[in-house]
């Protein structure tokens, strides 16, 4: 379990990293390394050069930018876990983050690293897709943006250009009577998810659904949104029968992953149940929060 030889370069800024990536197609960026290092020691990845972006100070931050919360790419997962702004303004991310690996891997693992790594079972890509996050990256001296929904194209595969470095992610803030839920089925605490579901709702004063997003991760090649169910449930009271029907229909045509741990049929069944549960929990959360406020 030893990595193949490589050159190591610690860069002082993002453009330096981009230039190195552009000049050597076998170079890889290392951030937290919590997935890349295991891939390297198992020789599933053999970069010729590692470009270490951990010490670029301006890539590590959490801040409020108008209607969004921006998080720098090398912000450690453990920092997001304890951040008061995230807890107050991005409750869905706050819920999901404790499911990401273990405390010891969240201490090193970064937000941008997990987003760019695109593991189908990873929680952060699911939250980004569910909340319509915008990812920013730097390439060729320019900053570009891409919606999380257009970013993921396959397992461990994204639309990030090969000479680009992911720099930040913006999550839109929701206002009003908002409730969230995140649930996951896995074999043991914080292990890879077989299926994960995320839901966020905003209710009107009379308890109808003004806005809803539902995402499913780990079941398919990359996280998906249950768009048809979201359209159907908008303006409804989110009663159990309507939710279950809408979720069943939305998941009828997916192509679930199948492996030693969980068959495609199992993943579909669990996805339906978790999505249904997530919507119900998010609704209760929205209502409960309002009671507290009164």
């Amino acid at each position, binding site marked *: *379990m*030893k*990595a*193949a*030889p*490589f*050159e*190591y370069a*610690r860069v002082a800024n993002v453009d330096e990293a981009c230039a190195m990536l552009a000049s050597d197609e076998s170079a890889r960026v*290392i951030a937290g*390394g*919590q997935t890349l*290092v*295991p891939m*390297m*020691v*198992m020789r599933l990845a053999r970069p010729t050069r*590692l470009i*270490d972006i*951990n010490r670029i100070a301006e890539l590590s931050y959490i801040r409020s930018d108008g209607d969004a919360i921006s998080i720098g790419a090398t912000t450690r997962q*453990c920092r997001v876990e304890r951040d008061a702004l995230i807890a107050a303004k991005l409750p869905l991310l706050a819920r999901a983050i404790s499911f990401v*690996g*273990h*405390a*010891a*891997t969240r*201490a*090193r693992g970064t937000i941008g690293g997990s987003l760019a790594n695109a593991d189908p079972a990873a929680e952060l890509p699911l939250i980004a897709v569910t909340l319509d996050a915008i990812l920013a990256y730097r390439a060729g001296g320019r900053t570009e943006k891409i919606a999380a929904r257009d970013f993921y194209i396959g397992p461990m595969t994204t639309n990030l250009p090969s000479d680009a470095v992911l720099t930040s992610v913006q999550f839109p803030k929701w206002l009003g009577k908002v409730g969230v839920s995140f649930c996951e089925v896995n074999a043991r*605490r*914080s292990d890879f998810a077989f299926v994960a579901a995320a839901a966020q709702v905003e209710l009107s004063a009379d308890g109808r659904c003004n806005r809803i997003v539902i995402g499913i991760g780990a079941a398919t090649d990359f996280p998906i949104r249950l768009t048809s169910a979201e359209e159907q449930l908008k303006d409804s009271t989110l009663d159990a029968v309507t939710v279950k029907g809408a979720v069943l229909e939305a998941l009828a045509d997916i192509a679930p992953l199948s492996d030693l741990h969980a068959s495609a049929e199992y993943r579909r069944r669990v996805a339906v149940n978790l999505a249904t549960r997530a919507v119900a929990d998010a609704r209760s959360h929205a209502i409960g929060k309002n009671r507290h406020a009164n």
Partner: protein
Amino acid sequence: MRINLIVNGTESTLEVEPRTTLLDCLREYLGLKGAHAGCEHGVCGACTVLFDGVAVRSCLMFAPQAEGTPITTIEGITPGPGELSPLQDAFCEAHGLQCGYCTPAMILVAHALLAGNPDPTRDDIVDAISGNLCRCTGYAQIVEAIALAADRIRGSNRPSELRS
């Protein structure tokens, strides 16, 4: 390449290949065998060290990445030669170890937990050690040992008549 490591308060300059993990560097270059090589790909937690006071897996970091950051291994936990820390004492007393392979990592994880949370609940303890595999104890005595150490450390600054 040449790197500077600060381990248990001592600075060393070493010549390593970039692919050397921090774990291999600690064990083979510095002779600190307390960080154990279990799975070597981030699953078992046996290689845990404190990196700037935070528990991390030393097998998931290349040695050059650790340049200049204070690292504590199990060898740096004892208060003095021949002594044990309250956590180490508690692991002995509560039978928190059998074969001992996971023990240094368990103690370091517990150390990091108690530094930030002196009065952990059972759930806090279980969550803290959830990334560390033990194939002997069944975990129950490890949880007891950490709770015992936490209790003693909390009590150590109180007058004896108030200790529980």
